[in-house]
C-alpha cells in the first residue's frame, strides 16, 4: 500500500504542477482531471469509498466537464496567453516558498503533539453510517446545500444570459 501511496502522491503533485504550467487550457483541464482521479485514489486508500465515488462524479464528471465546455465555448484552446512580468512571477515564487515554509514550519512545530494512530474498530465511514450522520445531525446544512445549489443554478443561468442592451 505504501508504494501505492507514493505513486498516487507523485501523480497528484505532478499533474497539479502540469495543470498550472501547461500553456493550453485544454491540457490543463485534462491534467486536472488526472489529478482528481488520483485524489479519489487517496480516498480509496482511506477506505472512504463513498467519498471517492462522489468525488469522481462531482469533480471529474460535473465540474471538469463544465470547465471544458466553457473553454471550448470561449475558444481558448490555443496557447496565446502572454506571460506575466518577471516581477509577478518572482512574487509568485516567493509566495509559494513563503506559504510552503510557513505551513511546513507550523506543522513541524506541531508534530510532537501528534499521537500515533490507534484503531478503535468502530464503523464510522460506511455509507450507512454517513447517511445517518448526514440526515440526522446535519439535516439542516444538507437542506441548505440543496438550496445553495438551486440558487447557484439560477445565478449561473441569469449571469450567462445574453444581456439585452437597451436601444
Amino acid at each position: 500500500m505504501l508504494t501505492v501511496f507514493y505513486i498516487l502522491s507523485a501523480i497528484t503533485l505532478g499533474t497539479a504542477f502540469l495543470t498550472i504550467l501547461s500553456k493550453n487550457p485544454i491540457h490543463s483541464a485534462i491534467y486536472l482531471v488526472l489529478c482528481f482521479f488520483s485524489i479519489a485514489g487517496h480516498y480509496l486508500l482511506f477506505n472512504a469509498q463513498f467519498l471517492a465515488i462522489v468525488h469522481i462524479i462531482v469533480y471529474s464528471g460535473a465540474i471538469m466537464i463544465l470547465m471544458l465546455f466553457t473553454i471550448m465555448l470561449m475558444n481558448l484552446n490555443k496557447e496565446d496567453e502572454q506571460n506575466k512580468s518577471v516581477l509577478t512571477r518572482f512574487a509568485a515564487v516567493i509566495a509559494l516558498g513563503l506559504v510552503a515554509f510557513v505551513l511546513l514550519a507550523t506543522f513541524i512545530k506541531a508534530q510532537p503533539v501528534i499521537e500515533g494512530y490507534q484503531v478503535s474498530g468502530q464503523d464510522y465511514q460506511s455509507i450507512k453510517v454517513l447517511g445517518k450522520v448526514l440526515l440526522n445531525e446535519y439535516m439542516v446544512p444538507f437542506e441548505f446545500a440543496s438550496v445553495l445549489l438551486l440558487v447557484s443554478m439560477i445565478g449561473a443561468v441569469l449571469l450567462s444570459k445574453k444581456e439585452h442592451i437597451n436601444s
Partner: protein
Amino acid sequence: METNLALLLLLAPFIGFLINVFAGKKLSGNLPGILGTVAVATSFAVTLSFFLQVSSSKEPVMIDLFEWMQLRNFKVNIAFQLDQLSLLWLMFVTGIGTLIHMYSISYMHDDENVHKFFAYLNLFVFFMITLVMGSNLLIMFIGWEGVGLCSYLLIGFWYKNHDYNDAAKKAFIMNRIGDLGFLIGIFILGFIFNSLDYTVIRTAIESGKLLQPSWGISIAALCLFIGACGKSAQIPLYTWLPDAMAGPTPVSALIHAATMVTAGIFMITRLNFLFDLAPEVQNIIAIVGAVTSLIAASIGLIQNDIKKVLAYSTVSQLGLMFLALGLGAYQIAVFHVITHAFFKACLFLGSGSVIHAMHGEQDMRYMGGLRKVMKVTFITFLISTLAISGLPPFSGFFSKDEILMTAFHDNKPLWVIGSVASIMTAFYMFRLLYLTFYKDFRGTEEQKKHLHESPGLITFPLIVLAILALVGGAISLPGNSWLNEYLAPVIAKQSEHHHMGTTEYMLMGVAIIGAFIGIGLAYAKYIKQSSVPGQDSEITGFAKVLYNKFYVDEIYTALIVKPIYALGSFFKNAIEVAISGFIFGLGKLANVLGTEGKTLQNGSIGFYLFAFVLGICSIIVYIFLAK
C-alpha cells in the same frame, strides 16, 4: 446706633453717587454739585462726632456686618473699624473732600457731564472711606481697588481725548501691578496668621506666639510695600501720577495729592506692627522713599506745566513720607500726610484757579503777573508754597523737619538725600510761584482781557486750606506733640522721643537755610534775571534728561510694553499658527493617507492575492509560530 451712624458715614457719598448717576442728568444747574457736597459733608459731620467720641473714650468702634468670604483656614467679614488712625484719616479725607466738592461746583459748572463728575467724586470718597474704615485687609483692598477705579474714571473724565484715556489706563494698570503685590502679601499673611483682621494679626504678633519664620513676614511686608508703591507713586511705579494730571484739577487735588496717593502710607501705618518685624523691608522703604523724593524733585526742577510741577512735587513729598515710614517714624509720616494734604490741596486748587482764569492754559511760560489780578489765589498760593518749602512757622516746616531729623539720627546718607530734595523743592516751588504770579503777563491779549479772580466758591476752599496749611503744624509741635499721643494706641512701637537739644536746633537751622538757598536761587534766576524757560527744543544736556523725566517712560515702554506686544505678535503669528497648523496637519495627514492609500487598490487581482497570501502567512506566524 453706632452701626447706623457708621453706615451713614460710609454710605452717604454712595447715595450721592447713586442719585447723581441715575438722576443727575435731570437735576438742573449746580444741584448735582450741591448734592455731592452735602453727601460728603454729611460724612464729615459723622466723622467729626466719631472723632470726638473716640479721642475722649480712646476705645475704637468696631462694626461687624456679615460674612463675606470663606477660605480654607479663615473667614473674611464685611467689618469696619473706627479707631484713632482711621478717624484721623477720615477727618481729612472727608474734610478736604467737602472743600474740593465745593470748589468743583464752580470749577466744573460749564461741563456737560457735571453730574457724572460729582458721581465719580462721591464714589471715590465712598471707596476711600471703605479703604480707611475696613477692619481687615480685604475690605481695605475693596477700597484700594475702588479708588483706583475712580481715579481711572476721573483721569479719563474728558474721554474724547485719547491722551487722557491713555493716562487713565496707565494709572489703572500701574496700580494693578502694585495691587498684585498687595494680593500676594495678603495671601502670605493669610497663611501665617489665619486671619486678615488687623486686630487679630496684631494680637498674634504681640503675643509672641508666632511659629512661622520671620522671613515669611518680611516677604509679606515687601509685597504689601509693592502695593503701596503702586498706589502712592513710588519708584518704580510712580510714572502714572504725573500723567494723571490729565484729569480735572479738583481731581488732582483730591485724589492725586491729598487722599488716594496717601493710601500706601495709611496701609503701612495701619500694619506698623508688621513692618516693625521686617527691618530689612523698612530699609528698602526708606531708601526707595528717599530716592523717589530726590528723583521726583529733580524732574520737577525743570517742568513747565504747572500741574506737572505739582505732581512731581507730590511724588517727592510722598517719598519723604515713605522715608519716615522706613525709619519707623509712623506718626511723623502721618503728620506729613496731613500737612501735605492741606498745602498740596491748596496748591492744586490754586493752580486750578489759575488755569480757570487762563482758560485752560497750563504752561507757565505763558503766564506771569497774575499776582495783580488774582489776589486771593496768590496769597493762598504763597502761603502753601512757603509751607511746602519748609519755612517756619508754616505747617510743612514742622513735619518735614521731623522727618529729616529722624533721618539724621538713623541714617545720615538718607538725611543728605532728603535735604537735597527739600532744597530742590524750595527752588522749584518758588520758580513756579515767580513764573506764574510775578513779572508781566506772557500770554495772548485775548487771555489777558479775560483774566479775573475766581468766584467765591473757588476762593473759599483756598482760604480754608491756606489757613490750615499755615497752622496745621500745631497738631504736632516738636517736643509737645498732640498727634503722637493721639496715635499712640495704634502704633505698636513708639519711636524714641527726640530730645530738643542743640543738634536738633542746628538741624532746624540747616533746613531753614537750605530752604532759603532754594528760594534765593529761584529769586536770582526768575526775578533778577527775569529768565523764562525756553522752548522744548532749546533744552540741552542734563536738563534735557530731566525735562524728559530721565526717559523712564520710554525705558518702561521699551522694556515692558514693547516686549509684551512683540510677544503677542509672536504668539499670534507663530505659535497660534503652528498649533493650528499642527491640528490641521492631522486632518491633512488623514487626507493624504486616504489618497495615497487608495492607490494601493490598483485593481490588479494578482497584487491583491499576493497581499492576501502575505496576510495569511503573517496571521499563521503570529498565531502558531511567534511564541
